[in-house]
């Protein structure tokens, strides 16, 4: 599992963020999105989201002082009940894919294998790794 990114195709419409925040919070709220599109005109944007397959050593897992982060079948998950919101994982992530909101760390969990963002991306800037391969 995982996401394959092609920033050259990203139009910065943020439908991925809209879909993610709706899936995770039931409302459109950009802070609730686990994926973030950061503009950098005239260059292509930066897409901040978990890049498990590209990530060397998954430092977020070791960074967590309360062992709230674990890996299962190629997906890094955060146990929000155990999370103390210390921000260590946020600081450790080389892709800036983790944010702290209301005292809890948030990151992409691939929606259990059927990511809401992928379905909304009309240009193919975000694809499912399995489909892309």
């Amino acid at each position: 599992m995982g996401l394959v990114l092609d920033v050259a195709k990203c139009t910065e419409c943020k439908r991925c963020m809209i879909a993610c925040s709706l899936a995770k919070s039931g409302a459109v709220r950009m802070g609730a999105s686990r994926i973030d599109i950061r503009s950098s005109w005239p260059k292509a944007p930066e897409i901040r989201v978990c890049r498990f397959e590209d990530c060397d050593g998954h430092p977020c897992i070791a960074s967590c002082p309360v062992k709230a982060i674990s890996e299962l079948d190629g997906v890094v998950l955060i146990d929000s009940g155990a999370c103390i919101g210390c921000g260590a994982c946020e600081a450790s992530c080389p892709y800036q894919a983790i944010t702290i909101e209301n005292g809890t760390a948030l990151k992409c969990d691939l929606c259990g294998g059927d990511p809401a963002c992928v379905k909304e991306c009309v240009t193919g800037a975000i694809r499912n790794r399995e489909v892309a391969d």
Partner: protein
Amino acid sequence: MTGSMFDRMIRIDVGKRESTLWTVPDDLRSYLGGIGYGVKLLCAEVDPRIDPLSPDNKIILTVGPLTGTSAPMHAQSCIVTKSPLTGTILNSYAGGFLGPEIKFCGLDGIIFEGAAAEWSLVLIDNEGVRFEPAADIVGKTTGEAEAYIKDNYGHDYRTLSIGPAGERAVAMASVFSETRAFGRGGAGAVLGSKRIKAIGIRGTGAVTTADPARFRELTARNMDVLREARVDEYGLVGIFSKFGTGGGMSLVQGHGALPTKNHTYGSFDGAETIDGPFFEENLYTRRIACFGCPIHCGRIHTFSAADGNELWSRGPEYETMFSLGSNLLNGDAATLAEANRLTEQYGVDSLTVGVTIAWAFEMAEAGKLNVPGLDLGFGNAQAVLGLIHMICMREGIGDMLANGPRQAALELGNGSIGRAMQVKNSGFAAWMPRRMKGTGLAYATSNRGACHKRAPIGAEIAGALDMDSYEGKAAVVIETQNTVNAIFTLISCRFHEFVTDHEIYPKLLAAATGRSASWDEMVTLGERIWNLEKLFNLKAGLTRDDDRLPGKCYEPVLGKTSQSAVMDEAKFEAMLDEYYRLRGWNAAGIPGKRRLDELGIGEYAM
């Protein structure tokens, strides 16, 4: 709060440096949002006779019931104010990301009142409003003002700004918002008159809907329609997606309706080197979209300036390819790109500024206008760039041109007024009224001056209507004006309506807000708003004369495909009579009490 509407706006008195939250009253809620809120509020609170650049004017910045939701192609926000360009009530729109950000602040709109003593920045977030000095960026470009806010107050701020043109009360100055502009009508000069250099807006809140399951279903179905339209290479929306809005230039050219050399010809030999496909092949580097839009008609391009510097900018859009391209006999893409970039950085409407320059060129060629040191003439790139600078800085002849094409022609006199291609001092858009009679009537009768947003362009270009016929055009124009006003209460993108059935709008409205209005009721609301605008304009002093086309429209078009196309003045006047009659207005264009009573706005009758 009902679903996606907060029923709350914020009033900002920039003179007193005060802001107050204001609950939207019930009678205003029936206007749904967007243009409806703006027009109703301005009509209720601003005397039509005021000087638009006085502190008595207001800027009403609104969003709609679908802004900030997952509904695609509803990113725009709307400014309503009294225009310093036209002297009319103005509604002007910008896409991008500003609209949703206003919603994320928990607001349905922002009202700017009064005028500050010193140049100011206004910062708005979920906590409230604060004012900061703007001394560091007075005189700076829109891009510099935008960067200043992001660098000093945070990159998550969405920005509005004016450039040097807005600071100098240039009548066609625009308000810019990052990739987009409230282009038409001079809202930038109004913001400048209030001494607001820039505005930062940052919202962190949520937008919900009244019936999330139903809303999700409607949005998913609409996305299916748009996914198909996006890749339909024969449909306009598909063409805009693939090539930007300039993708249809050859189609317009083929009909001899591409205004060229100040509307002298209907086709331009240099069109192939400035149109959408040319830019897509050679200059565009990125496709960019508004919030939530799958069509991404926006573009970023790079180019080499005359001095060899590598520059980049947004656009140019189709209308600019006309106004700074074909209409000036400019077939050089780099010159067009540089002119487009200048209008953006100085903060001015590329349409009306180009129309004004075209008029100046024609006057120079006729020996009626002479500017020492500047060789005014069609095809002269340096004169185009020089005049944009002079207009925006109000230098030399630019001071006269900065008041708009009609005002400049009145000042010059010497029979020049009929060559200024404008209505109500707002420049024609990129469609030729002599070829497209309905579009001509739409330009003439538009409440905000020559306007293509409410013209039957698609039907006339695609052939559903005979473009040269006068028959039945009055009814079609009325229907278009009412319909577009209806969707602008939701601030739907004009391109959304090209491919989406109208019946979706009441459904989206109900699922988002729990409020109900049938499509017919929405169109009647559009008519109600149109009449309120008209009454505002009449009370401001406009007459039937302001609903007429310039004299050049009654002379034949020259050139290949459009040879001898002409607007017959008597037939135009008959069309205007028919238009007034069908609207329930008298021969002077004054709405009758009976129709106003039927629309529920009898108290505004004259």
